[in-house]
């Protein structure tokens, strides 16, 4: 198991490096990229950049300097807003995005797994049809449509939730639903098909031949096996939640990372875009790694790879 984990760590580091390299290249090397072309840059920004990275240095040195900064969690000055650093934005947005992301993740898991289980156990019956219908809606209707729809009905028309911001806890409800919609539907469908497949396996038949109750069979034998594909897909699910946050935070005016990121995109604040991309990538990879460890603990077959 140790070998497996070490392998994963190495791949993680390699991935992060590649993403940093790619981002850096896109910003500095590709024709038309901000640092090469004649984009309108204020002198103050140029000075700030020069002070930090010395734009006359050869590219590879700039990259090294940048990476050293990154390793110290320093993403450099903002391209657009003089006096502000990328770190300011990240630190400002983290609490909001972090909270929203966490509760959405919990919400997603609490909803999707039971949904999938019920749909599988009542396969073909109305519960299955209903749940799968809802899941299809969730997977096909884009998150921003769900978000605006919910906002219109519950905030504008009914007034149950605040129109913007997260000053009260109620402000988190709609964003949570909108952000989680896709993932809940996706995971529910996966859980259902996984459980259905497991229930058709031979070892379930063996368990029945032992005379065990159906409940115990599902709980002890089926679920553990059925959850494995779901856990495997948790990494990309977290990725989805992450990118989903861009649009949701904009619609609900939540001052989180997503909002800053979108803003930096529209404002063409290139250093912030770079820094936040790398930050996102790091968070994501860390989460995937945690999921991997979890997966390792559950499936004994992995230990011996």
């Amino acid at each position, binding site marked *: 198991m140790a070998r497996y984990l070490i392998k994963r760590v190495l791949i993680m580091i390699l991935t992060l490096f590649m993403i940093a390299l*790619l981002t850096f290249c896109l910003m500095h090397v590709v024709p038309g990229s*901000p640092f090469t072309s004649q984009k309108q840059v204020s002198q103050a920004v140029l000075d700030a950049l020069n002070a930090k990275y010395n734009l006359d240095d050869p590219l590879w040195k700039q990259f090294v300097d940048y990476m050293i900064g990154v390793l110290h969690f320093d993403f450099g000055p903002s391209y657009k807003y003089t006096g502000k650093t990328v770190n300011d934005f990240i630190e400002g947005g983290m609490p909001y995005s972090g909270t929203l992301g966490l509760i959405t993740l919990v919400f997603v898991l609490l909803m999707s797994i039971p949904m999938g289980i019920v749909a599988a156990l009542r396969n073909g019956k109305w519960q299955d049809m209903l749940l799968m219908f809802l899941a299809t809606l969730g997977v096909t209707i884009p998150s921003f449509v769900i978000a*605006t729809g919910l906002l219109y009905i519950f905030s504008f028309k009914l007034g149950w939730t605040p129109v913007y911001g997260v000053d009260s806890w109620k402000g988190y409800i709609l964003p949570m639903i909108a952000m989680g919609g896709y993932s809940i539907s996706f995971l529910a469908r996966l859980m259902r098909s996984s459980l259905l497949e497991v229930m058709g396996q031979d070892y379930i038949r063996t368990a029945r031949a032992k005379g065990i109750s159906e409940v115990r069979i599902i709980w002890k034998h089926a679920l553990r096996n059925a959850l494995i594909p779901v856990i495997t897909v948790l990494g*990309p699910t977290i990725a989805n939640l992450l990118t989903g946050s861009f649009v949701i935070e904009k619609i609900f005016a939540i001052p989180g990372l997503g909002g800053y990121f979108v803003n930096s995109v*529209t404002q063409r604040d290139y250093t912030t875009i770079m820094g936040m*991309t790398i930050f*996102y990538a790091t968070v994501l990879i860390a989460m995937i790694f945690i999921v991997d460890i979890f997966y390792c603990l559950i499936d004994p077959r992995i230990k011996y790879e």
Partner: protein
Amino acid sequence: MTEENKWERVSGSTEEAERIYRKSRSFLGDVWFRFRHKPTALLGFILVVILLVFCLAGPAFTPYSYSEQNNKLASIPPLLTVYPGPEEGSYLYITQGLKLIEVDEDGNLIRQLKKKKDDNTNKQTSFTWDDDTLVYLDYSRLPNTVLDADGNRIETGLKKWNNTYRLGTDQLGRDILTRLMYGTRISLMVAFIAALVNMVIGIAYGGISGYLGGRTDTIMMRIVDIISTIPLTLYVILIKMCLDDGLLSIIIALSSVYWVDMARVVRGEMLSLKNQEFVLAARTIGSSTKTILLNHLIPNAMGPILVTVTMLIPSAIFMEAFMSFIGIGIAPPMASLGTMCNDATETLRTNPYQLFLPALVICIIMFAFNFVGDGLRDALDPKLKK
């Protein structure tokens, strides 16, 4: 059979013995049969056809162009609340800018009335109907209404469908129906081209990786793994940042990342197909690698390829709308469904239809292609044969 001939020897006919009891169909016939018997797949297919007709042939039937602005008639919804006007059969609609528009019996918008006088104390405005008559708009309290002949507020209005602009106008007075048609056209075009390019790149990459196998395959797939660990959205945004605004840049950005899914699928197919005997046979007769790839392997992998491409389209549509929503989409005056949605978010409260109509179309597109993709996948899966 009678009592006499019951012992008559009947030769064990091979045909009866070898008879297979199910009707057999050709492969394609089988796929089509299963596809069209799945209700959602069929529905999706019909929707796709309707959408294509809508965006390709539709503009020929509307009198408006997608950029024709008419500021006097801005933000008029498809369903109007009108109040009876001074003449029989004429009605009045109150715009958001507190102007009056004459509407006829069928819901056609005739003209905007000219403002006569603003009375700020009583919160009333008078408009000229014709040389003799004035009409009064009362905005002292909500809802804004028109005064009748006795000077009383007419509290309830009638509902009429907008006959001039069937789906209403946007903030610049452009016909939404026409813009939807063009928007669908753009969105679908972007999605199709991006899906196609992704498909080609994916098939090439995955095909080579899977066919060559061994070290090359491992390295190539590792690269794919590393790329797809990070959400593709981030890549698309980064790439778009380096390109100028415009249709081409969106297509390039979308085409540069989604091929990874296709590559994986094709590589998987390659791995399982290349060990089959028909490949060995082809090699035995001396076919070149290119021939084997193009004539044998890829056609056989067409099933999963088709399914993946069909699923690429909704992804592309979604991504394009997503990018528009965060502000790096297509530049005006060209509009895609995504930009229409984005433009309408600010006025969501007052003009919800401006957002929900393009959003509805997006949903229909997503539904249609998802259903078709699902249906194809089930139809092509030999294990699901009844």
